[in-house]
């Protein structure tokens, strides 16, 4: 109990610091875990050694990792990225191939031998589903096109990683054994697909809806599958798949991943996510803190070489992913955001390294080096994947150096961000005979506008140069529908006398826009009014109210 108490306390400090310093929690949990390890070495004692014994921490890591991979698998519903298939395949495979090849080359150049270099190459070739999904959830951008694309690429990479895991676990064994493992993997995967499509939704949703939709039971009513039973069924599916994987000679984490995938269809994934929320928070805290506590800093030379590989991941992945994503049809901004978000190694690289140690392919020092790369890149990702860096990188985008054909606009109406409802803005303005100019960073939107003969510029509405190009100061009116209030604030800094209407959702954003001289249009106010009108007519209102 002391060990668990220490880990939870360290995690609580990590969460507190994360909230206070506005830094993502995962690196802080790792740092707190490493502090525990440091504390043990500074103040050694039997109680401390027992509480944080490596076997105990490894047990927690195994359970925590299985659970977190399971929870991440639940988010990987293939239907989410059905419209981004091309981008998913291109980004997922290119990153896996190119980053892997670069990693292998660099590892060789840094003096790692064949097998070590191979493990390092696979470790740096994929990104972390855990870190990325968590970040997308925090940003509430899971369902934006780039969020869907990134999720799809992660699913693909996880599947590739699982294939590697199985192949390496049986490397050097007879061909027939290897073939048997691959067949087992395919069998378990097929079972997961069948469960995802048919069995699990039937089992859990049918059981949940069999009973009455009320709290009080009448005679003859069957009780519903309550939260406790649901949780147990969900956890059982995890343990059945991990047990099945063990039985088939596959790493348990493979079973955990497939178990999560089996529960990823909607609305089952939502039901399960609700049931697992506290367990996910608990295991997130315990896993990363225990991982931090387990890391033994290797000799300085190896640390430097590991950091060089980590640096490669952070520097290579963003441009690589951004180029491929943009070529696949994503906007420049979304492509850059995707690249920055994927710039870390996967949690599965740790499992891979552990498998390597168990199989005798690599030693503990290389495991520590791979863990160090994971820690360093996971720590850096949330820090680099932010708006200001995205904006800076947009400045380096080649499209900015190309001359863009645009007329010299004056006394025009400038529309920043076309979005899905842009035509409702454009139509009445065109009808009234205004000279229009639309700025949007989505190439598909630009193509559509060009087809309709609407003057447009591709770029970011918050980009000073684009605004200059659009002659913003000479516009008679600016209509902004930007997602970030910061972008609108930048725009307002550049215009003085032009009326700028900015559509926002939150009252505090409206106040900020007003304070900067803009005219806020509150989407929430408008929607509440429409709701009120509907409510009066829908027949649900209290009659005498």
């Amino acid at each position, binding site marked *: 109990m002391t060990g668990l108490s220490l880990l939870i306390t360290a995690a609580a400090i990590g969460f507190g610091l994360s909230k206070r310093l506005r830094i993502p929690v995962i690196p802080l949990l790792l740092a707190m875990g490493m502090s525990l390890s440091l504390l043990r070495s500074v103040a050694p004692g039997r109680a401390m050694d027992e509480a944080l014994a490596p076997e105990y921490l490894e047990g927690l890591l195994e359970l925590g990792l299985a659970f977190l991979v399971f929870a991440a698998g639940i988010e990987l519903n293939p239907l989410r990225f059905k419209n981004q298939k091309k981008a998913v395949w291109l980004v997922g495979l290119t990153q896996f191939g190119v980053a892997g090849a670069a990693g292998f080359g660099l590892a060789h150049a840094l003096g790692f031998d064949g097998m070590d270099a191979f493990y390092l190459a696979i470790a740096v070739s994929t990104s972390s589903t855990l870190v990325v999904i968590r970040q997308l959830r925090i940003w509430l951008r899971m369902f934006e096109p780039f969020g869907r694309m990134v999720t799809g690429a992660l699913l693909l990479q996880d599947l590739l990683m699982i294939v590697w895991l199985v192949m390496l676990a049986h490397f050097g064994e007879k061909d027939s054994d290897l073939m048997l493992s691959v067949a087992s993997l395919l069998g378990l995967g097929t079972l997961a697909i069948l469960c995802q499509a048919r069995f699990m939704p039937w089992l859990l949703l049918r059981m949940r809806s069999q009973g009455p939709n009320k709290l009080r039971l009448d005679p003859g009513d069957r009780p519903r599958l309550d939260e406790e039973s649901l949780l147990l069924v969900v956890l059982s599916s995890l343990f059945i798949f991990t047990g099945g994987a063990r039985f088939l000679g596959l790493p348990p984490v493979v079973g955990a991943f497939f178990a999560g995938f089996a529960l990823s269809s909607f609305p089952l994934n939502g039901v399960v996510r609700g049931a697992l929320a506290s367990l996910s928070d608990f295991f997130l805290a315990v896993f990363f803190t225990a991982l931090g506590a387990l890391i033994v800093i290797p000799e300085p030379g190896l640390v430097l070489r590991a950091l060089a590989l980590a640096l490669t991941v952070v520097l290579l992945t963003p441009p690589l992913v951004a180029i491929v994503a943009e070529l696949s049809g994503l906007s420049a901004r979304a492509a850059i955001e995707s690249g920055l978000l994927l710039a870390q190694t996967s949690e599965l690289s740790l499992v891979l390294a552990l498998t390597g140690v168990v199989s005798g392919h690599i030693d503990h020092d290389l495991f520590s080096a791979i863990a160090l790369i994971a820690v360093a890149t996971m720590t850096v990702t949330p820090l680099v994947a932010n708006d200001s860096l995205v904006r800076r990188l947009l400045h380096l985008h080649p499209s900015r150096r190309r001359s863009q054909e645009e007329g010299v606009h004056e006394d025009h109406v400038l529309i920043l961000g076309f979005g899905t409802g842009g035509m409702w803005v454009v139509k009445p303005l065109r009808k009234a005979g205004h000279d229009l100019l639309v700025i949007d960073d989505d190439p598909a939107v630009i193509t559509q506008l060009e087809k309709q003969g609407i003057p447009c510029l591709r770029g970011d509405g918050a980009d000073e140069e684009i605004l200059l190009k659009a002659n913003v100061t000479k516009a008679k009116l600016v209509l902004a529908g930007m997602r970030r209030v910061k972008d609108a604030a930048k725009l307002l800094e550049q215009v003085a006398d032009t009326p700028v209407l900015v559509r926002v*959702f939150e009252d505090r954003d409206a106040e900020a826009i007003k304070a900067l001289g803009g005219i806020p249009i509150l989407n929430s106010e408008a929607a509440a009014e429409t709701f009120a009108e509907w409510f009066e007519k829908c027949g649900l209102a209290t009659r005498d109210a």
Partner: protein
Amino acid sequence: MTVAATAFALAARGVKLPAIVAYLLAGLFLGPITGVVELSEGLRTISDAGIVLLLFLVGLELSFDKIRDLGKAALLAGTGQIVLTASGGFLIAIALGFQGTQAVILAAALTFSSTVVVVKLLEQQGEFDSLYGRIAVGILLLQDLAVIALLTFLSGWSPDTASDFGALTQSVLKAFGGMTLLLILALVAAKYWLPAPFAWASRSPETLFVWSLCWCFLVVLAAHGLHLSHESGAFLAGVSLAQLPYNHDLRRRVRPLMNFFIAIFFVSLGVNMNLDNVVAILPAALALSAFTLFVKPSFIAFVLARLNFGERTSFHAGNALAQISEFSFILAAMCVRAGLLDDRIVSLIGLVGVITISVSSCFIVYNHGYYRWMQKFGMLRILRAPQTEEQTASPVANRAHIIVVGANSLGRRIVEHLVNRGEAVLALDTDPGKLRDLPCRTMMGDAQNVDFLEEAGLPRARLLVSCIGIEDVNNLLAYRCRTLKVPCAIHAIDLSMVDSLLEMDPTYLMLPKVDGIKLQNRRLKEMGLIES
């Protein structure tokens, strides 16, 4: 173990037995019957964590308001019940041939009823807020306090001190001293230390959750340092957090974690059970079970009748408490550690637990029929309870109301409009800061959690309005409303999400982006820039 627990729990669900019985049976199946599972150190840690979280959760129920609410009735009925049941249990244990200490422990084990079983079944029956339900819960909370005192007493007991009265007294006094110190610490923390930092953390649900776990385990460590049981520390940690306004949300968050760990605990208990002498202990187990199932509820009903409660209320309250508690198992485990019991008595208590929890669950589920049957045969005359008109159950507040999920700018506007219109509105959000100034009833919690939605009365709601900006939560709420046939208005964050939402067949879709453009066009018209 989890798979076996689930299989047994699902099977038990079919025959309306509570999950605890299923876990014990799963443990019996895995351990004494098939010998498939042996307990490892890791499983023991999980099992210990389960007990800690259970006690923490029980502590979280005990806000001072609730303690005041229990009032005189629960105090008198609870004390009377404890005295009568303990005395009766002791006598029957002696009559069955058990020695002094064993008889005392058996009597204690029979005295307490299961908070987990009773609360769970009352909630399932929708009778948690009935008069008898509130009395039963009041008595259970009083029993919880008595259990803590007993656990403290046992902390001071060890095989070394048992034979030396002076050393035993010193040890027990030390344990009670430690307990008093910890209690003072918990109360001071509840009043002065915890409110400010937890208010700060409350705007981040996961920080609040991890901090509450941290507080729980810190107090457990402090209890360990003072040579008290982990359970006492966890209970006091729960009590101190129960005084904060976030206790409901914390309970909902801790419960799933506890459910997972406690399942392992109960299965482990079954695994550890010794069935070698089941035939030998069966007569004693049946006698003690009969006492618990029929005599113990009669004591409770009798005391309540003396306090002028009606026959129906007295009967139902007694009937609800006709089982032994999960604490009886913990008590038995501690007594074995203290060298006071042997495995045979532990098995006996386990068997009595399985029998009484199983049978009393059926009594609770079919309580109205059971009452009519008892009344028909005149078996309730012995209570001599007043035949007054029964007090009706307290009104269920959440009925035909409108639930607004998400107190963002859209949610707040809709709440204000509905309240001004005279509607009964309940607003939900994970952030207490956003709920603070709303002119309606509010609940803090996660709308993805079914328990939370049921507590908010979704099945009886007239309308659910989801204003939050998270697509999958909106989809899930639309799905739940469709399943429950509750009308719903859902926020479509973007036009690209409309199609997937329409599949859930919502009553109304809110499209702030479209409405915003319409508002913008109205402004442009006012500015003379467009025509219509």
